[in-house]
């Protein structure tokens, strides 16, 4: 590997100090907040979008216990539908205990689907696809009979994945 310039080393050292400071304060937060941690993270997730509060909430949420993370599922689902945070949110959901998520997720996504935003439907269908095949099929069927043309068309496309390969004109 090549030589590291002195200016780059200086920047690394500054970054390390900032990292140390951030981690120290975050530990202080965990020590002080204790049972209020989830409430504060939830408050930040529900707050104005794109703020630092939300970015910090993502960071802290990742380090919570499974039970605490599960409590944030309703708030996190919305982020599955927002481009810049979709990957984080999807990983967050998929890292939760699958069975528990399956027991509540259909009910929890309803408010999002009720907004009738095409991209929300796509994002939720994509999440269901990663979570559970029967759930994904159910969603595809629902989309394929939706009154919105774009959602319906996408649902029909998704349904093709559930048909036997020969029906799709592919070789088995």
């Amino acid at each position, binding site marked *: *590997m*090549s030589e*590291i*310039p002195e*200016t*780059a*080393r200086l*920047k*690394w050292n*500054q*970054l*390390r100090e*900032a*990292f*140390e*400071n*951030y*981690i120290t*304060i*975050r530990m*202080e*937060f965990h020590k*002080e*907040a204790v049972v*209020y941690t989830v409430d*504060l993270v939830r408050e*930040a997730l529900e707050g104005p979008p794109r703020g*630092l*509060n939300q*970015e*910090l909430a993502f*960071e802290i949420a990742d380090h919570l216990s499974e039970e605490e993370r599960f409590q944030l599922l309703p708030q996190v689902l919305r982020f599955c539908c927002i481009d810049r945070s979709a990957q984080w949110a999807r990983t967050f959901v998929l890292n939760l205990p699958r069975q528990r998520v399956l027991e509540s997720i259909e009910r929890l996504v309803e408010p999002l689907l009720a907004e009738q935003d095409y991209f929300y439907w796509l994002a939720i269908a994509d999440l269901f696809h990663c979570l559970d095949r029967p759930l994904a099929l159910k969603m595809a069927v629902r989309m394929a009979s939706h009154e919105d043309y774009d959602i319906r068309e996408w649902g029909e496309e998704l349904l093709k994945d559930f048909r036997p390969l020969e029906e799709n004109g592919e070789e088995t």
Partner: protein
Amino acid sequence: MQDDSLESIRRVWREATEAYDVFTSLRAKLYSDNRSQLVEMVNEALIHPQNRSDQYLAFEIAETLTECERLKLLTALLSYCSCGRLAGQAKSLILALPRHPVLEVIEGAAEPVLAENDFLDWCNILDVFNSLDKELARRFATRMAAHDDPNIREWGSDFLKED
């Protein structure tokens, strides 16, 4: 909860937000100004850390590097596979890399670590190899079973028996 306690928690949250802002701004600056040296800096922080923060920061940044860049960290990451709290993270970073390019270079990358002849390094590298490729693990265990160190030898023999 009393108002003053809640206010105190909110104050710490605000401080954490500010500290996170400083950290992410400096990180963004390092990415924009020194992207080409970033992998070298992470490697140095892993191999010659000034303190534990250096190690944790290196792992934090390593997560964001490209697969190609992370491949260059392979020797350093393998040396962390027996390093307490960071071992799991090191193994995850290695196993998240595309299998074929890793298999092409990992034996060579492991040599500097194995040269230290630390029993735990040998065991953990066998564990990584086993997660990557059974044949590679068997070959490595055979090498271990013929090692001068009786502990490494025994571990290799036991692996082969169970295989």
